[in-house]
């Protein structure tokens, strides 16, 4: 039963997001370097951290799938990665907005974290065509899990390599803005992180509930011997039943 617990979870998310937004705009002090633009970080960084953890979680679910053969873990893995890709889009867009506000360009190569994230995003974007190209559902699930594990191992390596590639001429601007965060900013940041993380979990659960419902409908249809539905099913998303 995926839907159980969805209500308290969403309520908690609403409360957390409301608290986070209030803190960002009414409590957190103005940054000396960046000014009002720094407020973007309360959104951008928690999104990035949550997305990255989501990718790793997707890899962990994939390991469970490979070891147990239970396709439910594959569904969890798929939805985790899917949600993290969506959050990733938000990370890149908010990152670009911040870059434009700070440097005048919509994209800069000077921020190693943002560049690393772009590469990770490109890697996981290939997850969809990869799944789509494998027809047999059982094999698709297995190969997708291998992909998720491989990509999970790739994430830290990628961050390390990109960071090392940065020339020492351009200091890490987010580093200086983040270094020695005053207590009030850190508190605000943590609340934002909790809110975004809760949002991720809620949306993943929502997605799994929708998939499960769809799966139950298929099951019902089969049990009733009813004819096939007018609209076809998805070829890449794993089924949950």
């Amino acid at each position, binding site marked *: 039963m995926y839907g159980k617990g969805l209500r308290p979870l969403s309520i908690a998310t609403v409360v957390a997001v409301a608290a986070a937004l209030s803190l960002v705009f009414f409590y957190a*002090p*103005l*940054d*000396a*370097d*960046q*000014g*009002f*633009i720094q*407020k*973007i970080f309360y*959104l*951008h960084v928690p*999104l990035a951290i949550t997305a990255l953890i989501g990718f790793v979680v997707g890899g962990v679910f994939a390991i469970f799938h490979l070891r147990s053969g239970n396709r439910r873990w594959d569904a969890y893995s798929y939805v985790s990665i899917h949600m993290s890709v*969506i959050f990733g*889009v*938000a990370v890149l*867009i*908010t990152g670009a*907005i*911040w870059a*434009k*506000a*700070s440097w005048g360009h919509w994209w800069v190569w000077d921020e190693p974290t943002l560049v690393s994230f772009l590469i990770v995003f490109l890697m996981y974007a290939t997850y969809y065509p990869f799944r789509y190209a494998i027809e047999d559902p059982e094999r698709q699930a297995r190969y997708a899990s291998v992909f998720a594990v491989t990509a999970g191992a790739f994430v830290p390596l990628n961050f390390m390599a990109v960071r090392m590639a940065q020339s020492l001429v351009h200091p890490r601007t987010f580093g200086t803005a983040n270094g020695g965060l005053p207590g009030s900013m850190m508190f605000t940041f943590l609340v934002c992180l909790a809110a975004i993380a809760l*949002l991720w979990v809620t*949306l993943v659960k*929502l*997605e799994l509930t*929708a998939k499960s*419902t*769809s799966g139950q*409908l298929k099951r*019902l*249809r089969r049990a*009733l011997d*009813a004819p096939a*539905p007018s*609209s076809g099913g998805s070829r890449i998303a794993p089924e949950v039943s």
Partner: protein
Amino acid sequence: MIGLLLAAAPALPLDEAGKYVAGAYIVFLVLIVVYVAIMASKLGHMEKELRELASFAEHRADGEAAAGSDREEVSADV
């Protein structure tokens, strides 16, 4: 105090910066709303399918009830 901070040359003047910050939070909101819209359309499909199945099941139940009562009548005649 705030005045001192503002005077310490932030990256953009406050009203300019405000647009970018607002833009970022709006993008976030829009993505969430788009997701809700997609889920809503999925829900609509599921409702339609469930309705089809329900009427199919009811038809079949009616058909069986009718066939059952036909059989009863036949046996009653005999």
